[in-house]
């Protein structure tokens, strides 16, 4: 076995610039130690091509000359396929060199930064974040016959969804916070600036940060990314507008194909659906109205079983969101949210970001069903 572990801060910085943390469904740092580097030389035994993360299993020669099997964690198959890779890009028997981060818990797992075929020297399964091309000129916002902006697909069934958020972290607007795309603060002293948290919430937030977000239930248990977090996820959201029934279905690309409904028919939050009056939900209960070209959503009834930010800012079941969706042009959706939660915050606070239209495509099929290995 050839395993070198060394403290190299530059490697961690490189990963941030490469955007690996932003692509993963969890913070890489939650499971792997980015301050160390591991190099493995071995023989591929299996390629496990499944969400949320693909894995390559590699037999590495141990110190006693025996074979030891290691799990190499990669990005999701969605990202790998977007970058042109397929399951068969590596096959059992291929000799490879892996350079990455070792697991924090000392288990035989490595997050792969580079995976190189020994025979050809070719790198495989490397991922580059890819945004849709920027149109040369702004296109006008598409509208319904009644003049309302279309949040979803176009007439004639042309599909599309919203992704590539301009921010992947939930921080109060205009706050000067040094934070990574995966929600980890670079300076823990910035914690009080993230949001106006009550003392208990700030202390919980610090604890989650100190543990590298490893307790994120979205990571541990594949819990849904409710609230604003779903609009900061890698695989986007899709709006399906049903004007006849006065509702908008929101399909969550990073949430196991979950959906929730925004009602525009005047019903209240409580008793929205018969038989399920007021149970708190991961995606809450939403009612909305149009204010000019903006859909204003009053969103309540969230449970406390998930993190509504990737950085671990706590919330309670008193959470209320006022979300504003404005399609400012064909390719841009402005999302603004005001967060009110007297159980966790000292005052309401706001933030916002934009999403990009990904036209001619359906939501990626991303399922987080377990967290192998």
């Amino acid at each position: 076995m050839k395993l070198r572990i060394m403290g190299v801060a530059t490697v961690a910085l490189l990963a941030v610039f490469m955007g690996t943390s932003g692509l993963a469904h969890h913070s890489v740092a939650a499971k792997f130690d980015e301050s160390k580097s591991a190099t493995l030389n071995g023989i591929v035994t299996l390629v496990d091509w499944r969400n949320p993360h693909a894995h390559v299993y590699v037999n590495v020669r141990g110190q006693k000359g025996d074979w030891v099997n290691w799990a190499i964690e990669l990005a999701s198959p969605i990202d790998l396929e977007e970058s042109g890779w397929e399951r068969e890009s590596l096959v059992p028997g291929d000799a490879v060199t892996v350079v990455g981060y070792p697991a924090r818990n000392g288990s035989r797992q490595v997050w792969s930064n580079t995976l190189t075929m020994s025979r050809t020297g070719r790198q495989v399964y490397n991922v580059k974040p890819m945004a849709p091309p920027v149109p040369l000129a702004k296109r006008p916002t598409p509208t319904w016959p009644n003049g309302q902006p279309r949040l979803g697909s176009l007439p004639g069934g042309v599909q599309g969804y919203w992704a590539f958020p301009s921010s992947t972290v939930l921080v109060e607007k205009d706050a000067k916070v040094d934070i990574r795309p995966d929600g980890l603060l670079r300076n823990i002293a910035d914690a009080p600036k993230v949001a106006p948290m009550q003392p208990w919430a700030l202390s919980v937030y610090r604890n989650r940060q100190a543990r590298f977000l490893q307790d994120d239930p979205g990571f541990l248990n594949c819990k849904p990314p409710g609230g604003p977090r779903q609009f900061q996820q890698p695989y986007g959201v899709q709006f399906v507008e049903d004007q006849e029934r006065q509702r908008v279905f929101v399909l969550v690309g990073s949430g196991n194909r979950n959906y929730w409904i925004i009602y525009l028919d005047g019903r209240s939050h409580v008793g929205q659906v018969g038989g399920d009056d007021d149970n708190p939900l991961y995606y809450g209960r939403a009612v909305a109205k149009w204010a000019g070209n903006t859909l204003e959503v009053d969103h309540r009834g969230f449970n406390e079983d998930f993190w509504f930010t990737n950085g671990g800012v706590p919330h309670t079941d008193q959470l209320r969101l006022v979300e504003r969706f404005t399609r400012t042009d064909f390719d841009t959706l402005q999302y603004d949210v005001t967060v009110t939660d007297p159980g966790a915050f000292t005052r309401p606070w706001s933030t916002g970001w934009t999403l990009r239209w990904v036209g001619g495509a359906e939501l990626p099929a991303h399922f987080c069903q377990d967290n192998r290995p």
Partner: protein
Amino acid sequence: MRALIFVVALSFVALSGAPAMAQEGHPVKGSWIGTWANNKLLGNDVLVIMSWDGKAITGMINPGTDDIPFKTATLDPDKWTIRIEADAKTKAGVVTYVIEGKLENLAMHNRSIVGTWKSSQGSGAFTIQRQ
């Protein structure tokens, strides 16, 4: 009789609670089960229900006909220590219980509070785990 009530209450919690749920909100909120050792008046086993309204921790010990509502409960989030005071109406009259403990395994849904209890009737170790 008290033991019977405890068993009924325990069964209710066990049957109604389904699997232990993640609780990512206020860390003390929820149902807790454990022991207060050497409590000759109320028995060793104890159930505690706690909630958080945004300003105060509320709750009760041994919910049921002989429940003991919290008088006060304060949490120090810097040290994760908690102090609970509750008055129990017993055959011996009103007995004030003071529980002081520390939250352990904060990040886990089945976190614990470990400390001590004391009253005019005695004192001992206090340990409860969130269900």
